């Protein structure tokens, strides 16, 4: 062989975006798949319990790359030990209960058999809230300012250096130098241009949401989890879309009390159930603190429907009273293990008011439809 048999080169690859472009398409598919499975994902424990973690993992089976393959749980693999490995030695527990990589594998990692998309809670929230809104929102007398964001809309000669408008400054310099015919390109203080801002003030109607939850003994872990999943997204949704919505948390068994958000989501109580207690409290709060003249009022109540029978009549009466003040009243009933068909729901069937909305939730997948039912933005003004 003559001469060199090799070439070494280094080129500019900055325009090669292929991997990123196809990754984007993959992300699109992930989002499509998530949207299709929102009902399953919304009540996913890893999200509700994410406690502020930014990124959550969502299992998506539809994005597996399917092909004919062996059953990984029945197959034998070749492994390598540190010496003196004997028959019967245990290498690890079933890796499906652990994170990937912990279990033993044979190149093909048995155990990890579905694709988990990573998505931020915000992105997920965006997908969930896409077509939700506060129903029957009306203009009220006393309006609060909801956003005071800044918008850069003006250019001035004075300002702080961090807001300098480079393009306009250079244009000014070129223009001045051309006029003066100096042929120079120096920038003089007079050329400097700064971006300045206006305050963007918008007003929006006030709203208060009253989250009411049954915390009585009959509300088991499942029922509580469902109610919490609903309120978790509800609170998130309200805070994302409306900056100045007040949210009150009322917990009740036979007596009701106003609790903090943290208590609402973490504390469990016991005892019997008298739902009228919480409605009374809600009415009292509306009368003393949130006048219907000034506020849009949205009470939501979640219960397993197992109310003291003698209390049902009173509940009906109070709900009717509440409906006079409210934009809508949402009632969610969770059908748990000991569900009884003569529940509060059957009592509320008598209510014939379009402002009253009720939802029956049987399992985790019912949370998303419930959100969609309650926050269907009809008649928005």
């Amino acid at each position, binding site marked *: *062989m003559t001469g*060199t*048999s*090799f*070439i*070494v*080169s*280094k*080129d500019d*690859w900055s325009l*090669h975006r292929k*991997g*990123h472009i*196809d*990754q*984007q*398409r*993959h*992300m*699109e*598919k992930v989002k499509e798949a998530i949207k299709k499975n929102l009902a399953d994902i919304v009540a996913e424990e890893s999200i509700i319990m994410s406690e502020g973690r930014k990124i959550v993992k969502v299992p998506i089976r539809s*994005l597996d*790359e*399917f*092909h*004919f*393959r*062996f*059953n*990984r*749980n*029945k*197959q*034998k*693999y*070749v*492994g*390598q*030990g*540190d010496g003196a*490995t*004997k*028959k*019967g*030695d245990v*290498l*690890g*527990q*079933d*890796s499906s*209960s652990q994170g990937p*990589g912990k*279990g033993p*594998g*044979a*190149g*093909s*990692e048995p155990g990890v*058999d579905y*694709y988990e998309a990573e998505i931020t809670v915000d992105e997920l929230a965006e997908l969930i809230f896409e077509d939700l809104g506060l129903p029957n929102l009306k203009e009220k007398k006393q309006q609060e300012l909801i956003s005071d964001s800044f918008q850069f809309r003006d250019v001035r000669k004075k300002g702080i250096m961090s807001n300098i408008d480079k393009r306009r400054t250079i244009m000014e310099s070129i223009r001045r130098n051309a006029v003066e015919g100096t042929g120079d390109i120096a920038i003089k203080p007079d050329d400097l241009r700064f971006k300045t801002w206006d305050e963007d003030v918008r007003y929006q109607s006030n709203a208060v949401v009253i989250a009411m939850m049954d915390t009585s003994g009959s509300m088991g872990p499942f029922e509580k989890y469902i109610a919490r999943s609903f309120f978790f997204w509800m609170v998130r949704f309200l805070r994302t879309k409306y900056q100045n919505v007040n949210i009150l948390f009322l917990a009740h068994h036979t007596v009701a009390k106003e609790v903090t958000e943290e208590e609402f989501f973490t504390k469990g109580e016991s005892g019997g159930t008298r739902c009228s207690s919480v409605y009374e409290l809600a009415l009292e709060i509306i009368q003393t603190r949130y006048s219907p003249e000034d506020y849009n009022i949205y009470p939501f109540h979640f219960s397993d429907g197992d109310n003291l029978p003698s209390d049902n009549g009173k509940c009906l009466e109070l709900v009717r009273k509440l409906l006079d003040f409210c934009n809508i009243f949402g009632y969610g009933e969770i059908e748990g293990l000991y569900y009884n068909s003569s529940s509060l729901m059957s009592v509320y069937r008598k209510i014939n008011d379009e402002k009253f909305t009720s939802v029956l939730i049987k399992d985790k997948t019912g949370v998303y439809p419930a959100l969609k039912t309650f926050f269907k933005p009809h008649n928005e003004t």
Partner: protein
Amino acid sequence: MTSEEIKLFQESLEQISNKAREFGLDFYEMRFEIIPSDIIYTFGAYGMPTRYSHWSFGKAFHRMKTQYDYNLSKIYELVINSDPCYAFLLDGNLLIQNKLVAAHVYAHCDFFKNNQWFRHTSRDMVESMSRNAERIREYEYRFGRERVESLLDSALAIQEHIDPRYNIGRQGAPQKKQCKYDKCGQEINKRVTPYDDLWNIGIKKDTGNENANKKNKKLPSEPEKDLLRFIAVYGRELEEWERDILFIVRDEMLYFWPQVETKIMNEGWATLWHSRIMREINLSEEETIEFAKMHAGVVQKSRSGLNPYYIGLKIWEDIEKRWDKPSAEEKKKYGRLGGQGREKIFEVRETENDISFIRNYLTKELVEELDLFLFQKVYTKWQVVETEWEKVREGFVTMLANGGFPFIMVEDGNYKGDGELYLCHSHDGRDLDLYYLEKTLPHVYRLWGRTVHMETVVDNKKLLYSYNGTKILKQSM
């Protein structure tokens, strides 16, 4: 790498390539490209510098890139089986790392060039794949991105089901159908001539009965392993551009297949030679330490499974030793003369693939020294189930068979006389993943256009899975 470093690298390449040649390695001309991490992971995900677009590549790219970003794994190089041979080096590599990588790459190139399983691979696949990509892009433009994507989804679902030895033992095998849109196919054109029937001289024709029984004629006449090809040729519902894409997917898989089949040998071979070459070139003290660290990383036992670099290296070294200094028994039994180690490993690198490599050269002593065993899931635990060396070797070979994929045969392309497709899984003791089976059959249906069946064995019972376009049916047989 700065241009200064590139210059130094070029100087050492001179030494490295000379050493490689002295050792008897025989390689193509080399093209080394220094590329940034994004690009090396793109090439890693696609397997090639240019390939058609598909979201699955984007997914692979993202996964690999994330692992790199979190410092969990790193690709130092990527080498392409082509003439000239392209090797892509990560821009962030140290000079010494690039030296080792270059030595490694020269041995890979030698392997590509000389191992017989690569004999039929196209050496200008970089260009072919870029033409394929262009054609698929054109189909996207003409027929819509969604349609092309959905076809690729289905084609990729069965891409492993090709027959890499399709042409062996077949005479006058029907050639690839000429495609209307084909821009490249020089080779294809060459073969379609008025004299093609000459190839069929000497092959018995059963013309008499053929016409009479045309309706009942079995298609294929013998069970066929090449599912992708079978569908591309005989699928009645496919449009021409769809057939073309199936052939593209098949051609690219045929190109990659020998790499799947020689992973252990090829990586072991490259590791063997990089260490020998590096030992013979001048290194500073610091470089020697860095080299030792990196080499130790390469041959590190993997906690999760087998490290092909390590296993391959140990077997190569063992072969050379046993042919250099045969034991008394080997001398007597096999008439081995000794001193033939080098010659022997070059012969093995020419003729074997991983299956025969393991079967012929994984000895009792090696299984024990490497502490190899078989393990499997027992209830909820992963447990060692076999340490006896012959059983381990057998299990190893089974794991490698057919690239690790189940054997699927096309039994009948006109099942029930109704054009339905009947596939049979050649069961070898390993059951299929039934969830995946149920999800893959619709892809086959998407391509075939009529009901598809798959015969398999689950827990010692024969089962027939069918998909008719709306649902999966499961029957015991």
